[in-house]
């Protein structure tokens, strides 16, 4: 049996059923009179941050959580790490109930949040790591080995003795990730890890995460609203909008499931008026001889035939709309999926 199969045999590393989190948000009333009224009676409304989410994740997977701001990704992540009590539903992570916060559970887990710092600001990263070692009671030799491996992987060996506040955002993020991985967690949760970072740093971090997952089979769950993160790392994607899971499966499947249109890019022999093209579909872009159309999938064949018949086309290109567009539309029309058609892909 392969290592992966062995790990799988132990069962899913995360199992979530109907996880729900509802908040009461107090309404602040406007103006001075409203504030005085607010002293005596408070009005509130309920926000369903997470609404009946269910899924399973096997060891070694890298899964992406995709969703617009406020969709409930971070809240779900925090519930999985035990930071927040759910309102309803259940979860088993690493064999534990997360919100009971057993020490043994916390030892196997790591959570890193983008733009949030858990390292000591004024001291070199090396000192924060040493403190980490004391907290997790890591034996010296193992600690040194892991630290060496991680600093080499992320390429930050020369920065260890610099105070954290002097590091760039990207370097700081790498240090945060190292700190998270020092105790060799089985599960790594990342919340918007590449937010605010420059392109080079983003690429490096994705590469390092992928490599680390390959070496250690650490399960990674990451939330992001950057498509690039998800495309680079995740074989499987969970799409959440307004607290509900609307898709669970491979990235490629999203376009198939949600996109009803194709993009047709035309290069005509001469400049053309975009008006007549409007009957084929939505004119996304018109620039002289270049015209970009959004055509409903069912009509594609007939539209192409009509265009080729009536116009002189130098070049024609048919594409799926970019994933961002598809996702953006998905977010706009939130359609809850109760029968989750999950094609679990093990890495």
């Amino acid at each position, binding site marked *: 049996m392969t290592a992966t199969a062995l790990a799988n045999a132990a069962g899913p590393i995360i199992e979530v059923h109907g996880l729900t989190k509802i908040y009461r948000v107090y309404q602040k009333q406007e103006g001075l009179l409203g504030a005085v009224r607010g002293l005596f009676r408070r009005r509130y409304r309920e926000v369903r941050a997470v609404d009946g989410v269910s899924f399973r994740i096997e060891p070694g997977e890298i899964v992406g959580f995709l969703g617009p701001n406020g969709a409930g990704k971070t809240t779900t992540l925090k519930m999985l790490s035990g930071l927040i009590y759910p309102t309803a539903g259940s979860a088993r992570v690493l064999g534990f109930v997360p919100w009971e916060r057993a020490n043994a559970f916390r030892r196997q887990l790591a959570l890193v949040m983008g733009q949030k710092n858990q390292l000591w600001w*004024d001291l070199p990263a090396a000192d924060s790591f040493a403190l980490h070692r004391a907290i*997790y009671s890591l034996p010296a030799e193992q600690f040194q080995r892991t630290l060496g491996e991680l600093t080499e992987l992320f390429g930050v060996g020369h920065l260890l003795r610099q105070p954290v506040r002097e590091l760039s955002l990207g370097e700081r993020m790498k240090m945060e990730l190292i700190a998270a991985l020092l105790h060799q967690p089985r599960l790594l949760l990342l919340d918007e890890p590449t937010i605010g970072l420059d392109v080079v740093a983003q690429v490096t971090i994705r590469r390092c995460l992928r490599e680390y997952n390959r070496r250690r089979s650490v399960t990674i769950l990451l939330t992001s609203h950057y498509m690039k993160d998800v495309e680079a790392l995740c074989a499987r994607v969970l799409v959440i909008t307004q607290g509900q899971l609307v898709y669970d499966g491979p990235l490629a499947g999203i376009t198939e499931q949600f996109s009803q249109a194709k993009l047709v890019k035309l290069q005509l022999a001469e400049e053309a008026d975009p008006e007549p093209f409007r009957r084929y579909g939505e004119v996304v872009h018109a620039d002289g001889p270049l015209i970009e159309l959004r055509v409903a999938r069912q009509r594609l064949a007939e539209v192409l035939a009509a265009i080729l018949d009536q116009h002189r086309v130098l070049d024609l290109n048919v594409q799926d709309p970019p994933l961002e567009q598809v996702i953006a539309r998905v977010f706009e029309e939130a359609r809850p999926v109760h029968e989750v058609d999950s094609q679990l892909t093990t890495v």
Partner: protein
Amino acid sequence: MRTLLHYGRLWLAFARFGLMRELSFRGNFLVKVSVELLWLIILLIFYDMVFTHTSVVADWSREEYLFFVGCYYALGGVIETLFLINCGEFAELVRTGDLDFYLLLPANEQFLITSRDLDWATLPNIFLGAGVSMLALMQLGWDFDLGRLLLFLLLFACGVALAYSFLVLLTAASVWLVRNQSLYEVWWLFTTFMRYPREIFAGRWAYPIGWFFTFVVPVIVATNVPARVMVKVLEPELAAYTLLASAVLLVLSRKVFYLALQHYRSASS
């Protein structure tokens, strides 16, 4: 036993790194230490000024009162050194949500939140306070009495436990009060009850208040009982009560603290 050792070692690690961080701001560190000294001087000036105008204050003679001042200062030093900055940070951690990072660590939350950092700048206060008290004892011509000394130390520890428990209760309150006026301020107001001998609560109105803050909210007890044991007579009921109150308050404050954490975790997003 093993966990105790583990936490001991962990605390030493925090203390070491805390010192390194303090020393990286050398100027600030020295300022803090010298101003702490200044505060002691102010207290002694006040004490001296009062006793130029009178020879006894609320049943305490000049030297006895001096001992009391040293006691108060040392107790304050223990709380400030071990706990105050940690608790003071709590409200901010709750506000920014950075408290999450502490909740993720595989260590006892109350320890992490109340006791992780050592304030090196107030550490001298403990010794200064002890020094002042020892000076007072010498002025009193005190004969060395091991039993009394041990009892004093025990009750002093109870005083620390009481003060710590109240600090934890105040800290926990930051979760419910939307914006807590700096914990330092509230703590300062709280310690006014520890600052004076219990006997000042005399008279028709004051006596019940004194009684309340001795037996219901046992703040006054924290400094008064150890000091009384040393320079005045031993009152066994009061001493026993202090021991009991410390135990009860430690447990109560712990419960309230975890309740606060629970509330934080239900309310944060």
